[in-house]
């Protein structure tokens, strides 16, 4: 029996499911690329720092007073207690608002919400992780978890794609991971620069470079929609069973806990039933437009 974080109780701490977010201080900001930064948050309430737990793949609603809330994945290791990383791409009102607050300022947090990566499906399997762009953020806690429980599964492969070498998230960490013998890391970029010696092209091209033992493989995908589709499709083509392919989806979110209706995806509420879905559960709608 795998002992994993998911065995703990993930209900948001009291008060965090309502509409008054709890305060967290931005204690560090780490630039990742031209429009993405990792914000390390620490709850103002010390006891919450201790008690707050999350499952890799879950997200928080981050709040800027007077502006709004945005769903942001928790990107730190589930074993890093007391400080939570959120890797944020500045795209609109809330995300830019968080950026303006700066180190020492406070943001509001509600969460954790959603269902994360199914850690109990990994025993004895090859694990292939596919990330694109900002999609690496919710995969990072998973990778940290896997590195702690490395003996539970067989091979672990990370395939990551982004626009250019400068766009890579967690560049230093990627380097460190690449040096490990218990983790195969392949990074590809759309546009290389003169220093880039790795592969160029879309992330699904990397599939040619690895051997996939279909029946024995569990796949975790998070990226833009085109990548999610292409990756899922490619692995199904390789005969990975649909029940072993997991995709994290993105939808407009307002409440985060299955009430506001915004994130509906067919019969699912992505915030509550996802964001991580088993392909077998969404096979009827995954390839359809505008669901």
């Amino acid at each position: 029996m795998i002992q994993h974080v998911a065995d703990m109780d993930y209900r948001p701490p009291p008060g965090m499911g309502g509409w008054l977010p709890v305060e967290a201080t931005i204690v560090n900001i780490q630039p990742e690329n031209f429009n993405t930064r990792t914000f390390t948050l620490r709850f103002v309430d010390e006891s919450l720092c201790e008690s707050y737990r999350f499952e890799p793949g879950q997200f928080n609603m981050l709040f800027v007073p007077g502006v709004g809330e945005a769903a942001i994945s928790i990107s730190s290791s589930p074993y890093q207690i007391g400080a939570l990383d959120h890797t944020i791409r500045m795209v609109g009102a809330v995300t830019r608002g968080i950026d303006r607050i700066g180190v020492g300022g406070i943001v509001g947090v509600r969460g954790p919400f959603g269902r994360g990566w199914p850690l109990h499906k990994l025993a004895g399997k090859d694990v292939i992780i596919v990330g694109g762009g900002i999609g690496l953020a919710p995969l990072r806690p998973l990778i940290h978890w896997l590195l702690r429980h490395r003996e539970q599964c067989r091979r672990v492969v990370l395939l990551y794609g982004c626009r250019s070498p400068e766009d890579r998230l967690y560049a230093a960490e990627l380097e460190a991971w690449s040096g490990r013998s218990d983790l195969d890391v392949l990074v590809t970029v759309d546009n290389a620069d003169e220093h880039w010696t790795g592969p160029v092209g879309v992330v699904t091209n990397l599939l040619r470079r690895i051997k996939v033992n279909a029946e024995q493989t569990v796949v975790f995908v998070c990226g833009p929609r085109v990548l999610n589709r292409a990756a899922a499709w490619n692995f199904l083509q390789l005969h990975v069973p649909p029940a072993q392919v997991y995709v994290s989806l993105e939808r407009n979110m307002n409440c985060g806990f299955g009430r506001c209706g915004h994130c509906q995806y067919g019969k699912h509420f992505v915030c509550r039933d996802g964001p991580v879905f088993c392909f077998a559960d969404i096979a009827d709608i995954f390839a359809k437009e505008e669901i």
Partner: protein
Amino acid sequence: MSQTSAGDQKYFLPRAGLEPLVGILRQRGYTVLAPTRRDEIIALAPVESADQIARGVHDHQDGGRYRLTQADPEVMFEYGPGADSPKRYLFPPELPLVELRVRGNRFIPTSQPPAIAQYAFLGIRACELAAIKVQDRVFGLEGQDTLCADAAEYYRRTRRRALLIAVNCTRPGGTCFCASMGTGPAATEGFDLSLTELRDGFLLTVGSQAGAALGAELDLRAPTSAEEGLAEMKLAAARAHMPRHLDTRGLKERLEQTIDDPNWERVAARCLSCGNCTMVCPTCFCFTVSDSSGLTDGVYGRTRRWESCFSHQFSYVAGSGPVRSTIAARYRHWLRHKLCTWQDQFGVSGCVGCGRCITWCPVGIDLTEEAQRLGRHVPGAGAVPIPKAGGTKEALP
């Protein structure tokens, strides 16, 4: 509140007994909400006297059409539901959730949780009781959250205090199809009291202990068998003259196969994506919580408002725009949610057959017609004509 089985206790309430009923409810601290005539529609509004309840009017409803006409001044409830439903009160269109100030590194709430009103709904219809039952499931009536500010908690508290006095429909509106949905025209459960209008009073049925306690204070007598028979006949006639019909057999399964149906495009050519259907629907529950800032006082507000899946921002995703960018996709989401995926989510149909979305659609799109067409498509044959549904429009005298 424990409900005794409906139909056990029947009484006759004289027409003049409505006034004392309103009085007793008000005395007990209830805000009495009843159908009133306002701006030429029937609107659910607070009343202080039974005189304020709409009477002597008939409604004429059809796709995109709503009119009131004068009727026998003695008849009271011979009209169907207006645009309003109890949803307006149990799940208000706009609800301030919390206000806060930022003091140092803390958010200080400066507001009290929303006050919980005590409503007595008088004259709501069987379909509206059914809609309340649907929303009870949506908001998890039995559940318990820690904060009143939670979307569901306001509903639960208001709902638990509410008293429901139903009126059975003896003259269905022109867009009703409650008989198809198994929700009307007569209320069979979920009410405290129900009334069936007779010539000079009402056949009153007690549906709960609270209803029985209320009944004990009214001037009731045992009904004659003629009165009971007349009430039955009127309801049977209403059922027989239901103007619209939706064949629900296998409907969910049929709709599951309709994602690629060509008929969505056909509806989209007419649909204005105005969202009226979702606003008037007594079961739609979507909302948006939006933030505001008092420019001068430093108080930040969080307000919940009804939202419609027909709006652009509903499915908006930064970077790529709305997920459902076309009207066809939005109408498809709406209809399939109401009649199909709602059942997966909450174990009941999201439609109770009240007909509001048909009446208040500016172009008169009729979901009973659209649902009949869907999923009957033969590949290559294009859109198929709609099989004739049972019943005709405005069949009652």
